[in-house]
């Protein structure tokens, strides 16, 4: 009997994402709990990071794996928001499911109600994504950015209570808990200040730190986190291969080698041809043609190299590869210290950095914990980089938005329809814009979307899409205030009140700060994930593994081996 091909039902998608949501929900929010991971080896680790929790789950279901991969990619870009991703995703899926169930367009091309529902859902998801790609950034510039605060790059000092410090502090609060977040954010601020390139835009130096972070930090086990500090200079994470000789004083000269000083004589598969053609018949000549002569020649040239280095006053040799024993003994004789197997990025940082470097020493009590702290630092840097990355919108759509709002004020003078208030002069999503944490972004965007629906009346499909998105966004603050629904209403009222009165909400709320740019990327990433989920028609089961390391999930079509056996 032929096993039927499994069509993807909306319920499967919902159930998968619902399970992931249940996993992540308990750690969500500032009061979320931590997950304790234990290995069979006895290693234990506590974590609150959404990406870490999700990637640690044992998932064989292809949809679940796809969702976790989307989360991972989003985290690799922005460093934040994995749990919010899943929450928003689940909420959107449920709303799309409800909308599709209420009104499936049954037509002759679908042979069941399920297929009709799936097709409607796919359509809705596509419309949502199209809407977001088209108009979301303008909505945010007009509806969210004016109520936030734009942090300038010059605010980047390590003073406590500077806005940047507050931004980092609230990030670390959700990641690592309350006890050390101020100290850690201070440390990171110092580091970022040090690496500020004076004449470059902020994203340049932030990108530099992000790319070179593995070389710019050193994990140290066995100390509490409060022992972490910034040190001058760059730490090369290798030990000396030869005895250390103290420098005499003054500057230390270093030579970097990327290859072998003494080439290996014979590797497997190679042929060494000795001698030259002119001496073809005279093989019994004393010099040049035997392997012993060749190796002697090599040693002599090596001694020559080292005497040269000594005369130049070189005292340290950094090598990217492992050098031979002859090199090491010659170096010891010449009182030159050798460090072998230095990693490429450390070497490139060493050779290319123009300013005096400083690096971070991160202390932690155990290996897992230190690794977590280091990961939190890196994610914070990514978050700051995303915040200051300039995003440009097309000027046409922004001006269209302005025209609409002006039109509404001129045509409906008698109406109480509130306008956007601020004429948006710059159509660029302002880099460095932050809003108070705790759901403010979601409340503001929800309000802006609802306003947008009431103002624009000739987009036939977008109102449905923007209504869906507006409702789904509220699930995030609802979950933040899940312990007390009254706070949810209070927070919403406060934010909307400040919108009505054109006041900044952030002077009133005493919570942390979060980056508008990261949230924008989050919403886009979630919508893209939704579209991808609904693009899957069928799941065919195979009994053999096809892709163990899938970073690109382009084709999830597998063969049904049972069918092949039957046929």
């Amino acid at each position: 009997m032929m096993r039927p091909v499994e069509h993807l039902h909306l319920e499967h998608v919902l159930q998968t994402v619902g399970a992931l949501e249940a996993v992540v929900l308990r750690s969500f929010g500032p009061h979320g709990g931590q997950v304790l991971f234990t290995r069979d080896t006895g290693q234990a680790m506590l974590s609150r990071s959404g990406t870490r929790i999700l990637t640690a789950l044992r998932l064989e279901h292809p949809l679940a794996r796809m969702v976790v991969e989307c989360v991972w990619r989003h985290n690799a870009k922005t460093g934040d928001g994995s749990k919010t991703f899943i929450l928003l995703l689940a909420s959107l899926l449920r709303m799309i499911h409800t909308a599709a169930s209420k009104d499936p367009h049954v037509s002759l091309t679908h042979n069941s109600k399920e297929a009709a529902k799936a097709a409607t859902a796919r359509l809705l998801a596509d419309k949502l994504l199209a809407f977001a790609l088209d108009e979301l950034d303008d909505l945010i510039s007009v509806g969210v950015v004016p109520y936030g605060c734009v942090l300038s790059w010059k605010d980047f000092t390590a003073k406590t209570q500077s806005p940047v410090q507050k931004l980092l502090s609230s990030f670390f609060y959700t990641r690592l808990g309350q006890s050390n977040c101020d100290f850690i954010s201070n440390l990171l601020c110092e580091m970022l200040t040090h690496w500020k390139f004076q004449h470059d835009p902020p994203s340049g130096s932030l990108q530099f730190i992000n790319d070179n972070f593995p070389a710019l930090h050193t994990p140290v086990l066995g100390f509490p986190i409060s022992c972490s500090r910034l040190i001058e200079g760059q730490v090369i994470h290798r030990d000396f291969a030869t005895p250390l000789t103290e420098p005499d004083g003054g500057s230390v000269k270093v030579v970097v080698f990327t290859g072998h000083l003494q080439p290996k004589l014979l590797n497997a598969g190679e042929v060494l041809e000795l001698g030259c053609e002119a001496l073809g018949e005279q093989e019994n000549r004393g010099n040049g043609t035997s392997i012993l002569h060749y190796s002697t020649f090599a040693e002599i040239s090596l001694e020559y190299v080292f005497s040269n280095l000594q005369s130049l006053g070189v005292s340290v040799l950094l090598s990217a590869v492992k050098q031979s024993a002859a090199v090491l003994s010659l170096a010891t004789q010449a009182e030159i210290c050798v460090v072998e197997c230095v990693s490429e990025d450390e070497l490139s940082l060493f050779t290319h950095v123009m300013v005096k470097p400083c690096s971070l020493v991160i202390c932690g009590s155990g290996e897992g914990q230190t690794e977590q702290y280091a990961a939190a630092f890196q994610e914070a840097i990514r978050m700051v980089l995303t915040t200051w990355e300039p995003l440009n919108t097309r000027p046409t759509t922004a001006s269209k938005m302005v025209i609409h709002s002006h039109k509404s004020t001129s045509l409906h003078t008698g109406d109480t329809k509130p306008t956007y208030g601020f004429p948006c002069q710059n159509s660029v999503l302002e880099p460095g814009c932050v809003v108070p944490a705790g759901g403010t972004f979601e409340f503001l965007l929800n309000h802006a979307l609802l306003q947008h629906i009431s103002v624009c009346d000739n987009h036939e499909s977008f109102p449905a899409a923007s209504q869906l998105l507006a409702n789904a966004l509220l699930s995030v603050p609802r979950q933040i205030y899940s312990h007390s629904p009254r706070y949810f209403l209070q927070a919403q009222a406060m934010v909307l009140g400040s919108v009505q009165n054109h006041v900044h909400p952030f002077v009133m709320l005493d919570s942390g700060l979060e980056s508008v740019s990261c949230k924008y990327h989050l919403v886009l990433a979630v919508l893209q994930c939704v579209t991808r989920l609904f693009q899957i028609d069928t799941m065919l089961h195979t009994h053999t593994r096809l892709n163990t390391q899938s970073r690109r999930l382009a084709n999830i079509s597998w063969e049904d081996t049972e069918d092949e056996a039957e046929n």
Partner: protein
Amino acid sequence: MSVKLDDEDFEWEPPTEAEMKVIQARRERQDKISKLMGDYLLKGYKMLGDCCDTCGTILLQDRQQKNYCVSCQELDSDVDKDNPALNAQAALSQVRERQLASQSPASSQSAELNGGPSSSHIGVSVPQPRPEHCEGAAAGGRAPLPPPAVPSTSAPPPPTVLAPTRPPVCPQTTVLQPVLQEAEDAVLTKLRWATNQLQSSASLEASIQLCSLISSCANSLRSLKELSQ
């Protein structure tokens, strides 16, 4: 390309209120399933790519390679068999009841009918998955249940007898008693079996499930005793 269409595809209407309740109950059940699955995933269970054959829920697999269906093995053991979210028959019967009740003149009686069925259902629920047992037992206890497609063993009087439900309680106790007695015996047997299993059980999961079975047997016995009074 030939496409087969059912008649019901062309007759789609928005769901009625009764069906909305069914949908609501189903949604709550789905939420419970998701929460349970999330808990198990955090405990180290693996989420498989297969679905359960009976209920369509995604299967989980524990460290001992044993497959586990959250809804079949956990939710259904302590949820009412006549919960409309689970049992399509029960849902249909509830909807038809209401339809008939709205057509019949004795609409006040139907309100009692709605109150009545749930308590007597609880009274005779036994942890067995076959719906006709419950239908049959419940039908024995309450005459005017219009029989759905499931044939019930103790067939009630013809479905025209809908209106008077509460008044003829006394003549029905004679029908009620042996049924209740049977149900009590069955529950006690199961209770004894569960107790024996619990004494010899070594696995944590099995013990938890047996304890929940014992508590639901105790609840059933209590309700049966209430009914017989």
